[in-house]
């Protein structure tokens, strides 16, 4: 089954550094999305990359997709304390649903 699996499970960096999170999945996809979740809150969509795209940018976010390796990465540049959250990748295949990974807990230390 499709399943996004992120690594690392937890990442702690200093403010201003770049944060990179990876996601792997198992089956073919239509698109892959990244979501953010602040502690105890809902998920907020960050960025979507289609299966025929290799890279996408949105502000300080950069997402790559390698369909041959079934993997994606999310890079947050110049991190801020407010970026502290959990980040999830989610895959969309033929069914009308998102399949989420385990998530990466990102902590930005001031």
């Amino acid at each position, binding site marked *: 089954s499709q399943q996004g699996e992120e690594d690392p499970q937890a990442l702690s960096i200093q403010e201003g550094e770049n944060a990179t999170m990876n996601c792997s999945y198992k089956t073919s996809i239509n698109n892959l999305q990244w979501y953010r979740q602040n502690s*105890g809150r809902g998920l907020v969509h960050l960025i979507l990359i289609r299966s025929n795209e290799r890279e996408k940018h949105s502000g300080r976010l950069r997402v790559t997709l390698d369909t041959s390796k079934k993997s994606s990465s999310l890079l947050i540049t110049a991190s801020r304390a407010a970026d502290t959250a959990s980040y999830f990748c989610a895959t969309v295949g*033929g069914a*009308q*649903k998102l399949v989420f990974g385990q998530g990466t807990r990102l902590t930005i230390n001031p």
Partner: protein
Amino acid sequence: EPEVTQTPSHQVTQMGQEVILRCVPISNHLYFYWYRQILGQKVEFLVSFYNNEISEKSEIFDDQFSVERPDGSNFTLKIRSTKLEDSAMYFCASNIQGATGANVLTFGAGSRLTVL
């Protein structure tokens, strides 16, 4: 900005009791979803709903669960006889085109269910 609203934000119930979680999706959205997240674990798909019927459901969504769109605005998740393992955060989401479309899911803030 339009948002998905969920009530209650937190509900505590006794094992075996019925629980109804309510959601008001974004008004022009056509696809509705329930997901759940057990504390510290990943977000799991429960059910999707379109055109007044379930379009897909997971193995978690057994006979104890049901969904309903009783009027033009509300979308509810009912758990008939709650178990301890139903304790989780339940998220409602909606979408205008379905998950494979260009649009993405908009999630509510969640309803935390605690079963004692």
